[in-house]
């Protein structure tokens, strides 16, 4: 359901613009050589605009899952959504390079989110988004020390960029889960909902260790990325890497 939300949002606006209401009203009075035409056209358009451009209901609705939508449901897939309706975004490699650039420009969370739009692996996808959200929360609340997270993000994105086209989903997911653990933030920033999208991973506490596992090299260094020190200094409930592998909800939001 996730990328679809955005896709539908865009599609609905696009269809409206290309649909009869917006288009046909202009047809009889296209601005052309005749000066009067424009005025007539304006009048019709004004009428339509004031009427709120009715009958859009026929276009159908945006269905937002009332339950269980994963955090970031609207966030992810924006690039895919645009692609789905025919707007190219460059290839995977290009996008990953953009992600690296974003992270280097001081916005690691955005880099992760951007990268998430590339991966086709649902688990990696979710883990990247969740890592991005953890980082955003930390940044908003000015919690924790950002340098390590930045290093981890850079490492992860480099791995993805170097392996564009052949990125190992579990590896990405594992690395992503180790980033920015120990989420802290007011619950209202975190939509409540069962984290149903993420398969249960290995129960290791995937802590954010020193970035000694070079992702490019160790092919199987996935979810069990080594290291014993929990991420961040304040251990919270010790779920630095979210032991259940759910990772979707920082504890504040869950019931």
């Amino acid at each position, binding site marked *: 359901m996730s990328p679809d939300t955005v896709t539908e949002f865009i599609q609905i606006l696009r269809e409206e613009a290309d649909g009869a209401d917006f*288009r046909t009203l202009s047809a009889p009075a296209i601005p052309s050589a005749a000066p009067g035409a424009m005025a007539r056209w304006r009048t019709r358009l004004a009428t339509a605009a004031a009427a709120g451009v009715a009958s859009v209901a026929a276009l159908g609705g945006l269905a937002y899952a009332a339950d269980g939508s994963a955090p970031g449901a609207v966030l992810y897939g924006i690039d895919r959504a645009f692609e789905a309706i025919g*707007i190219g975004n460059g290839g995977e490699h290009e996008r990953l390079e*953009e992600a690296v650039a974003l992270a280097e420009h001081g916005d690691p969370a*955005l880099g992760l989110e951007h990268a998430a739009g590339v991966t086709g692996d649902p688990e990696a996808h979710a883990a990247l988004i969740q890592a991005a959200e953890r980082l955003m929360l930390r940044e908003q609340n000015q919690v924790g020390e950002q340098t390590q997270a930045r290093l981890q993000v850079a490492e992860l994105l480099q791995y993805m960029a170097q392996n564009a086209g052949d990125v190992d989903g579990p590896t990405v997911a594992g690395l992503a889960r180790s980033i920015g653990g120990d989420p802290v933030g007011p619950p209202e920033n975190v939509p409540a909902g069962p984290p149903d999208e993420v398969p249960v991973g290995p129960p290791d506490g995937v802590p954010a260790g020193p970035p000694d596992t070079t992702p490019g090299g160790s092919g199987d260094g996935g979810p069990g990325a080594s290291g014993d020190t929990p991420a961040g200094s304040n251990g919270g409930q010790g779920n630095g890497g979210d032991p259940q592998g759910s990772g979707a909800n920082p504890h504040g939001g869950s019931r």
Partner: protein
Amino acid sequence: MRVMARGLEVDFPKALAAAKRGDEEAWRHLFQIIAGRVVGFLVVRGVRDPENVAGEVFADVVRSLKRFQGDRRDFVSWTLTIAHRRMVDAVRSSVRRPEDPTPADQLDRRDPVDVEDAALGLVGADRARHLLARLTPEQADVLALRIYGEMTLPEVARRLDKPLTAVTSLQHRALEALRRHLEGDRAPNSG
């Protein structure tokens, strides 16, 4: 594939060439491609008198058409670039003369959301447009140019004269805000 009303994709190059020669029917065809996009963009961006501004945009397009080269998508994004420029001018001048009536407010006063639909979490185009209009101007610019102008992020960055990272960042925040609005509207009590 492409979400597009049927008939809009008909042989663009031929239509363009004919329109440049002054063929009315061909121009009508081109006009149909962009008319709704321009209007949609202006409405979403809160232009007070979209009909007038759209008229200016189309007049610009007619004037400059001979210089235009490209395919259908280029044509749309080129037109939306013009629309954006006109929108900026319109906003500037309406700040100077704030006495204009505001059709946008009339739009806002209507409640386009069907009660049943709202209960089901369904949203129509009206609501989608309203949500876009609730973003900050910069965020709305990015999304609106992408949606109506079919521009890629680098293209948006060029048109808005902003770094790519800034534009990507704006898109990101825009989507975040959209999500908040959607969730807030959907479940006002469970926040």
